[in-house]
C-alpha cells in the first residue's frame, strides 16, 4: 500500500523542479512536506496525482507503476491552495460529485456527503453555491469532497495558505482531529509554515530547490536539522546562521568574542564553522557581538529585532515590547548551550542536547 517515489527528476526551462526525489509514503500517516515557495512541493503533489509528468524516476504503488496510471484511476483526492470547487454545483453536489462518478448508491452518497459536511462544520450549507461562501467555507467544501471519497491518497497543497490568520489557526487545529483517523489513506500535506508541519505531521519532509533535504519525525527534524538550509526552513523566524571560529575555548563571531565553547561543542577541533541559533536563543546584552539594528517588528507579546553583524543578518526574538530604534548599535548575547554547529559546507556536526541545559546553568 506504500506509495514510493524513486529518483524523480523534472527540469523545466533549465530549472530543477524535482531533483532526485525519493520518498516512501506510508498509509495512515500524515506526511508534512515543508519548504519555501518554489521548493517543488506543489510539483511533487502534481506528479503524485498524475497531473504532471516527470523526466525520469519511478513511482510505484502496491508494486505497480503508478506513473502509467491515468489521473482518474489513481484513487487520489487533492485539495488546492486556491479553494477549487465546481462553480455550477451547490455544496451538496460538489461533495457528491466524485461519489456519483464512483457509482455509489444514492443512499450511500447522501450518508457520506452529510457525514463529511458535518465533519467540516458545513451541515447547514448543503444548498449554497460555492460563490455564496467565504474563503474558509469554500476550502471546507473542497476538504469535505476530498474526505468523503475515502481515497487511498489524499493530497493537500498548502490548504491554509490563502486564509486569514485566525481561520488558519482554527482550521489547523481542526485538521488535527480530521486527520487523526486516516485509516489506510496516505496523507501528504505541503506547507511553508514550520508550526503546521510540526503540529500535523507524523513525518516531516524538508524540500528545497526540488530536493528532499531531510526526512524524519517532527522532533528529529527540529532538533537535528541535517543542514543549515533545513535549520532555516524548519524554524520561524528562520534560524540565525552565521560563520564563526572555535579557538582556545571561545567562539568568535565577526571578530567579537561571542561566547565560551559549551560542553556539546567541546570535542570539535578548532577551526571555522557555520553556527545556527534560534531567534529565541539570542538576546540583547551589554557585551557580545556588536551589530546595527536594521528593522524592528513588534507583534505585541514579542519583539523581533533584526540586527546586521557585518554582512550577516540576525533576528533576535525577545519577549515584550522593547524600545529599540533603527540604526542603534546593540550587542548580542548568544546562548552557548543552544548553538548548532555545522561544517563549512553546512552539514550538521553538533546539536545542542536539551538535557545539557541544566548542566550549563551551574
Amino acid at each position: 500500500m506504500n506509495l514510493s517515489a524513486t529518483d524523480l527528476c523534472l527540469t523545466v526551462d533549465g530549472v530543477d523542479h524535482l531533483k532526485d526525489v525519493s520518498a516512501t509514503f506510508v498509509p495512515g500517516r500524515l506526511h508534512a512536506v515543508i519548504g519555501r515557495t518554489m521548493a517543488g512541493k506543489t510539483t511533487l503533489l502534481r506528479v503524485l496525482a498524475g497531473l504532471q509528468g516527470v523526466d525520469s524516476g519511478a513511482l510505484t504503488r502496491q508494486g505497480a507503476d503508478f506513473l502509467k496510471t491515468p489521473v482518474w484511476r489513481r484513487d487520489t483526492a487533492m485539495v488546492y491552495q486556491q479553494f477549487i470547487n465546481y462553480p455550477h454545483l451547490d455544496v451538496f453536489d460538489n461533495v457528491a460529485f466524485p461519489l456519483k462518478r464512483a457509482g455509489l448508491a444514492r443512499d450511500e452518497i447522501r450518508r457520506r456527503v452529510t457525514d463529511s459536511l458535518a465533519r467540516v462544520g458545513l451541515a447547514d450549507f448543503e444548498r449554497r453555491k460555492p460563490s455564496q461562501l467565504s474563503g474558509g467555507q469554500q476550502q471546507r467544501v473542497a476538504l469535505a469532497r476530498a474526505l468523503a471519497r475515502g481515497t487511498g491518497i489524499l493530497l493537500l497543497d498548502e490548504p491554509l495558505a490563502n486564509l486569514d490568520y485566525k481561520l488558519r489557526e482554527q482550521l489547523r487545529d481542526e485538521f488535527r482531529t480530521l486527520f487523526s483517523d486516516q485509516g489506510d489513506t496516505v496523507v501528504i500535506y505541503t506547507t511553508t509554515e514550520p508550526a503546521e508541519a510540526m503540529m500535523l505531521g507524523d513525518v516531516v519532509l524538508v524540500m528545497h530547490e526540488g530536493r528532499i533535504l531531510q526526512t524524519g519525525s517532527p522532533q528529529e527534524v527540529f532538533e537535528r536539522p541535517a543542514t543549515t538550509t533545513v535549520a532555516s526552513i524548519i524554524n520561524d523566524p528562520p534560524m540565525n546562521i552565521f560563520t564563526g571560529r572555535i579557538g582556545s575555548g571561545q567562539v568568535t563571531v565577526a571578530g567579537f568574542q561571542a561566547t565560551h565553547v559549551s560542553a556539546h561543542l567541546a570535542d570539535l577541533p578548532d577551526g571555522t564553522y557555520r553556527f545556527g541559533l534560534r531567534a529565541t536563543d539570542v538576546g540583547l546584552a551589554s557585551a557580545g557581538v556588536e551589530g546595527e539594528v536594521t528593522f524592528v517588528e513588534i507583534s505585541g507579546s514579542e519583539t523581533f529585532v533584526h540586527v546586521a553583524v557585518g554582512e550577516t543578518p540576525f533576528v533576535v526574538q525577545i519577549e515584550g515590547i522593547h524600545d529599540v530604534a533603527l540604526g542603534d548599535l546593540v550587542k548580542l548575547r548568544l546562548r552557548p548551550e543552544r548553538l548548532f554547529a555545522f561544517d563549512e559546507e553546512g552539514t550538521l556536526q553538533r546539536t545542542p542536547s536539551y538535557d545539557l541545559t541544566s548542566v550549563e546553568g551551574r
Partner: protein
Amino acid sequence: MRSRLYPVFKYTMIALWACFVAGPFFWAMTTSFKDVNGVQGGATYLPWLQYEPTVVGWRNIFGGAGGVDVMRPFFNSAVVTVAASAVSLVLGSLAAYALSRYRFKLGFIKNSDIVFFFVSQRIMPPVVLVIPFFYLLQWTGLLDTVLGLVIVTVALLLPIAVWVMVDFFNGIPREIDEMAMLDGCGPFQTFVRAILPNSLPGLTVAAMFCVVFGWNDFFFAFRLTFTEVQTLPQAVVALNSSIPPWWTLSAAALFGVAPLILLALRVERYLSKGNLSGAVR
C-alpha cells in the same frame, strides 16, 4: 470636471443614436401598412392622419393574392440556421476545448496558428469561398438542397463558435479540469460534466453570433440554392422587382428580423447583467 451640461449631452447623443437605429424599423413599419396610394403620396409617417393604413402588405406575405408565401422560406431559414448553429456549437466547443487544454504541434503549426486558421475563414471575402463550395456541392449532388446549405453554413459559423469558445474556456481555471479528473472523470467526462455546465454564458454568446450570422446569410444561399430551396433573405430580395411592392417588401423584412429581435431581447438579460464578462474579452 463634468459640467452640468454633460447629462444633456449624453442623453442627446443616446437619443440621436436611438433614432438612427430605430429609424429604418419605423420606416419599414409604416410602409408595411401602406398601399400604392400611401407610398406614392410622398414621405408620410402618421397612420390615419397622413395615410390610410391597410394590411395588404402583411396579407401578401402570408399567401395573399399577388404576394409571396414567406412561410416556406422562413421555415428553410429556420432549419438551416438552427441546424448549422447547433452543429457549429457542438463541434466548435469540442474543438475549442481541445485547443484550450491540449497542446498541438505539427511542425511550426501550434495552437494559436490553428485558432487563427479557424478565424481566417471569416477574414477571407465570401466570394473566394463560394466557388469552391459550388463545385463541392455540385460534386456531392447537394446543390440546391437544405442539407447542402446547412453544411456550408456550418463552415461559416464554426470559426465564430471556435473563436468565442476558445476564449471562454481559457478563462475557466485548469484546476477545475484537474479536479474533475481526480474525481474520476476521463477527458470527455471532464468536458461534459465539469466544463460545459460552467460554460453557459460563453455558449449563449456563441449561439447568438451563430444564429445572427446564419439567419442573415444571403450571399451563400443566393449562390448555392435556386428553385427548390429558398431562404428568407432570398425571398425578400426576390420581391424587389422592377416596380417593387414596398408594403409587401417591408412586411417581409420585418417578419424576417422579428426572430432576431426576440432573441436579442432574451439574451439582453445576460448582456446587461454582465454575466458575459469574461465570455468575450
